[in-house]
């Protein structure tokens, strides 16, 4: 458990350090995610890595544990927003309508593209 948590933090630390060092336009933890994924995939290939947190589903179960209450983790930042609602009120209901309309349009555009492309690919594969 402590070993797994350390490994997760280590991935995040490496991600943050690289993102800040190279001024990359992405969050450090996202790079950390790719490091952890890479470690898990490398482990499957090389038995020598199968130890500590990379052994017996250890880091996997710690990771799943962290994700079971993902919603909880957004609350502190969300409460900050409740205190700055004056910024929204200042610009009236236009801001809320803008955000809501944009969310719906974005959801529809993304889902439609995803489905259209995967259907096209499936049809091409069926032809071959």
């Amino acid at each position, binding site marked *: 458990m402590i070993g797994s948590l350390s490994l*997760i933090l280590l991935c*995040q630390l490496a991600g*943050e350090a690289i993102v800040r060092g190279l001024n990359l336009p*992405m*969050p*450090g*933890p*996202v790079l*950390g*995610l*790719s*490091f*952890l*994924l890479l470690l898990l*995939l490398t482990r499957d290939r090389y038995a020598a890595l199968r130890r500590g947190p990379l052994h017996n589903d250890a*880091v*996997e179960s*710690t*990771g*799943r544990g*962290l*994700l079971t209450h993902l*919603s*909880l*983790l*957004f*609350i*502190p*930042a*969300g*409460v*900050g*927003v*409740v*205190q*700055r*609602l004056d910024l*929204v009120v200042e610009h009236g209901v*236009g801001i*809320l*309508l*803008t*955000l809501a*309309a*944009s*969310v*719906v*349009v*974005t*959801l*529809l*555009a*993304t*889902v439609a*593209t*995803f*489905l259209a*492309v*995967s259907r096209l*690919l499936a049809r091409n594969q069926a032809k071959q």
Partner: protein
Amino acid sequence: MNGNSFSLWVYLSQSPLLWLTVTLSVYAIADAVSLATHRHPLANPVLHSIWIIGGFLLITNTSYTTYFSGAQFVHFLLGPATVALAVPLYDNRKRVVAAIVPMLISLIAGSITAIVSVVLFARAFGLPQAVILSLAPKSVTAGVAMGISESLHGDASLTAVSVVLTGIMGAIIVTPLMNRIAVTDFRARGFAVGIAAHGIGTARAFQVDEVAGVFSGIAMGLNALVTSLLVPLAVTLLLH
């Protein structure tokens, strides 16, 4: 309140313990209600926890800084949890690899739609230019969005507010919207909510379906990257 209980309150209200306890307890109740309603979209635990805690802070005249001294322990876990998204991604790697082409194409389509639509709607509603700049990156995770907003001389706190509002709206709308248009492919549903509503959308996706959660997490990560490249470009093209 008599003298003794007042001094107890003064002591507790300044200690991280109280605010950490409040955060966890309110969430535990909101999550139980959400579960009891079979994860009804309107019973979103993030939404209800933040207004209840926000209201409580307002009533007790507590500053956000004091609240955050306790809540920071929860907030801190966002980073490690993002790294932990590697685990479900690893578990579902075959599915993900098989969908790489639809993902990349809908990433570009969704990312462009998110930025262009918010700029166009904001203009239609007559919002001032400075506000439009602050809203443009609203579909990505708060840290990245605030960075983009600052680089465009937008108002970073307005950006943070619009990011959270977008996330909550997306998390509430996605299930009824996808059911209405009869989309049953949870890869597509998850991917869409990750593009439109970042982490709060991803948390919702994991409540509904693990595959949806995985695809939402990927979409959120990729969109942070694409949006930071696209917003400055889009703003130059659309606003000048």
